[in-house]
């Protein structure tokens, strides 16, 4: 399990030895709960073989991929006992903040160790950054600091949401909205169920019958369907 996660991470990582390899843009969780690498380039994707199974949630950045099974947090280097249920990740460098919705608790992940964080947030947590947290409360989506102070609001976000390093992706009833660096790009897409960090430049958009890859790089935004990826 550790080896497979390592492969997924290294293929999507910009660092390392010189050479030529199949490009990887990140990873998704397929309909069977298997973590699968997404290979290729924009507009021409392939799904790699099932790596880890029993995955409830996953997120990848440039340097790190974390996955959550029912009772563990998995990384390329190991696994850690964790509260039951899914998880929401915020990845930066070799560190991560993890939110466990079932217990409504936060933890810091580093080197396969989870340290509980004393954060209390009211409302449904939609996504987390290293500091800020996106919550839905009374139907309104706000970006709050760990101390609960509201720093922003996203009134038109009616569906899932993912905080980016410099922006946000969220779903309305029939659109995906990518808002970053003062600009906004919209894509027609309905029935969005969840949004996760697929890789450093892509978000995974899960709908009722497909998984999409949203390219988030400024100026190269695009929404692509992943082949044979019914969730």
């Amino acid at each position, binding site marked *: 399990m550790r080896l497979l996660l390592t492969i997924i991470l290294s293929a999507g990582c910009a660092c390392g*030895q*010189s050479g030529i390899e*199949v490009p990887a843009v990140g990873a998704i969780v397929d309909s069977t709960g298997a973590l699968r690498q997404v290979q*290729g380039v924009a*507009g021409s*994707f392939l799904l790699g073989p099932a790596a880890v199974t029993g995955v409830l949630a996953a997120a990848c950045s440039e340097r790190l991929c974390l996955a959550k099974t029912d009772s563990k947090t998995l990384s390329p280097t190991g696994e850690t006992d964790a509260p039951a249920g899914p998880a929401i990740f915020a990845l930066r460098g070799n560190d991560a903040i993890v939110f466990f919705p079932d217990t409504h608790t936060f933890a810091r992940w580093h080197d396969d160790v989870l340290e509980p964080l004393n954060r209390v947030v009211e409302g449904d947590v939609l996504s987390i950054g290293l500091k800020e947290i996106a919550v839905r409360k009374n139907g309104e989506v706000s970006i709050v600091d760990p101390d609960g102070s509201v720093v922003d609001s996203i009134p038109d976000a009616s569906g899932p949401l993912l905080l980016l390093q410099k922006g946000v992706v969220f779903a309305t009833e029939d659109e995906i909205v990518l808002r970053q660096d003062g600009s906004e790009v919209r894509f027609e897409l309905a029935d969005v169920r969840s949004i996760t960090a697929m890789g450093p430049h892509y978000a995974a958009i899960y709908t009722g019958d497909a998984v999409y890859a949203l390219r988030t790089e400024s100026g*190269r935004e695009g929404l692509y369907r992943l082949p044979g990826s019914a969730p």
Partner: protein
Amino acid sequence: MRTLLLALLLPLAMRAQIALFTVNNGVEAPIGAVLDLGKVAAGDTVSVRIRVRNIGTATASISFFFADGVGYTISRPPLPFAIAPGSPQDALLSFSQSTPALLYPANLRIDSDTNSISVIVIANVVVGPALTVFPACTGSNGPPASVDFGLVQVGQLRLCNFSLQNPGAQDMTISTFNVTGAAFQMSTGPSPPFTIPAGGAITFVVNFAPSTATTYTGALAIETRSYNLTGAAFNTPLPTPLLEFDPGSIQSAQQRRLTMRLPTAATYSASGSVSLAFVPDTAVVTDDPAIVFLATGTRSLPFAVTQGSTLISIGGQTSAMFQTGTTSGRIRFTLSGVSTAGDATTLLTIPASTISIDSAIATRRTGDLDIQVTGFDNTYSAGVMTFTFSDISGQAFPAGAIRADFTQNFRTFFTNAQAGSAFQVRVSFPVTGDTSGIGSVDVQLTNSAGGKTQHLIFQ
């Protein structure tokens, strides 16, 4: 008094231990002293199911069971045989004669160990009607006698003309005259009962109007004769489906939309499969696994069209998305499972192109300059790369362009990966001294379609 009644009844019950019935469609009817088979056409065979039932309380042993008369045969178990109390034993009484005569009698007799039954069986052999069928239908005297209506297009009508003649010297009354079976119908002709005069004939027409593509059977009953009716139906080919793509030139690394429609409405509902296949221009790889329908990640999807519509659904949707992959060549779309008026095969040509750069980054480390390029080479001929470094003011270093040939590396990678031409290449340049003065690099990648240059700022 009671004793007397019992004494009278007991012998009576013993004598009546077996009884005879005819059975028609499962219904028993007692046979009286005479069993009349009625008129039988000369040469025809008429059969009657006879049931011997043991209505007594003791087992009956049957020792004699014959129909004694010219033209009569009986099919029953070998003698002797036993019949349990309350149980039946069936036999088939058949009669056939080729010479017309008013009366053909027989004595049907059954003996058991307790009682015997005798029945007079009679039949009247008459000259039968002669049926003639005209083309395009064909007839066979069999057995069994049959008429074939041939192969007919669904929704079309085939008429079969018949003549029914009375070859005898007496008028002939036809009481049974009907057609059964789906798709078969009596079209024109007399209603029974009717009379055909001696030496005369009547004509009639039977329709065959199939509604679906399958085989059909039916029957034409004329008096004691029954003719099997057969026919088959086929669908006409669908109008040649049109396979169309969303607007824009076809290139590699695209997700495109396929729609299918008919030029005219379908005359019947049909379904099949649309498949794609890929033939690459290069010999380096034999396929490109990214060229698939996105809904399933496969190369085949079911399609369907409903009667009266021109719209063809693909995988239950109005269109199907597919990827064009990262290899130049030809994508061939073919249909199967339906008959079409013409070949609907459609070719999409993916043209060869210069190397496409998906992303690139240049990073500066102590002692190293790293360049990473992600892209694809749909010609599979990449290899020559040149790097022109500039200082932070944009002035190229006097050493000029550094040329490197990675042709063999790319060839080995493409051959081993068999995953299309997408690649991520990382090139490191060891640098002695301070790298902070190096501001940018122009990376040129070349393949058989030309060169592509990317300007990268070191980070």
